[in-house]
């Protein structure tokens, strides 16, 4: 075998070493990718939780723009509206964040937060509850989530919030 000129030999050595490294890393990457993705989603979900509890609320329903990107990231770029609905009744005040897709009016997420002062016995375990990825229309929601929390008043309050969010969605769509 004819000997290679020296610079070419150096380049070849480095090249082969580089390919071996890249291959090893590609392998490890494939092994660890699902775990990494899971961690990222967990982190994003936690950030959203903080946003929910802290969002400003004076209006009854408001369209949140600043968290829109965060939610769109969570749902692979689908365009959404994020509504923050406050529902005050004689028993409690709840904040509900409702995420509705712009296109087809599907509820993607409902998150509920309770302020610290609630009457005892109602919704204590309700705080910060997420109903998670729903992907349902309003009609589906009304039937499926009837007895969500075991406390009728609070789940009715949540349903009222969702309805209000939906009304607002229709208003925006028709505008």
């Amino acid at each position, binding site marked *: 075998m004819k000997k290679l000129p020296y610079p070419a030999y*150096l380049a070849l*050595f480095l090249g082969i*070493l580089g390919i071996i490294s890249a291959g*090893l*890393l590609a392998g*490890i990457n494939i092994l*660890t*990718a699902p775990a*990494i993705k899971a961690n990222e989603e967990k*982190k994003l979900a936690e950030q959203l939780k903080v946003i929910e509890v802290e969002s400003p609320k004076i209006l009854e329903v408001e369209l949140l723009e600043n968290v829109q990107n965060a939610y769109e990231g969570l749902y692979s770029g689908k365009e959404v509206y994020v509504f923050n609905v406050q529902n005050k009744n004689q028993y409690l005040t709840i904040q509900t964040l409702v995420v509705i897709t712009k296109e087809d009016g599907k509820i993607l997420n409902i998150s509920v937060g309770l302020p610290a002062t609630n009457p005892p016995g109602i919704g204590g375990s309700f705080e910060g509850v997420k109903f998670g990825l729903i992907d349902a229309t309003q009609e589906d929601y009304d039937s499926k989530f009837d007895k969500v929390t075991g406390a009728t008043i609070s789940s009715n309050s949540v349903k009222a919030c969702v309805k209000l969010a939906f009304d607002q969605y229709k208003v925006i769509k028709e505008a």
Partner: protein
Amino acid sequence: MKVNQKQNFLKGLIKENPVFVFVLGICSTLAVTTSLESGIGMSLAVIFVLFFSNVVISLIKNIIPNDIRIPVFIIVITTFVSVVELIMQAYLPDLYDQLGVFVALIAVNCIILGRAEAFASKNNVLSSAIDALGMGLGYTIAICLVSIVREVLGTGLITIWGNAKINLMPIFDFFHVKPSAFFTSNVGAFIVLGIVIGIVNAIVFAVKDKKEKIKKEVKANG
């Protein structure tokens, strides 16, 4: 040439401690020692990279063309650093967030490149492996020492891992003093490390002087 493996291992702990004696890897020492937990995590990562890069470089030392040996070392070391990065991101994400960019910076940590150049490229695999473990452990001792000092003086707690903490506040209360966040700040880092190295030096010099004295006396007495 037979190498005394026990000495090979022990030298990295004190006599040739990479942080205190060779003064290498200072960047990471300053940044990572805000809590014992991150110190331990970083040390484990460094030991992993140091061990595998020493072994691999020792294995291929005879076929590395001399002119490109530094780039070759760098590629080998960085590969293992990237492996650690991926594993940490997947299974220890909180640690990865704490250490931040310093995990990637292990690749340019002078200790690892230094050992590759000074030892692994010139010794057999077994010696290189043991050298790596010794140096790695020396690094760990240095980092943990500084971490404990900074964390205790800074927050009164020692975080071993996650929620396992040792609360030393009772000692503080006993002396009626409070821990100060100064020590976990960047200014505190410099001061603590400077003082620790100074004290270690003082101890080493004192021990050396004593040994010389004893030697002289033995000589004088025949």
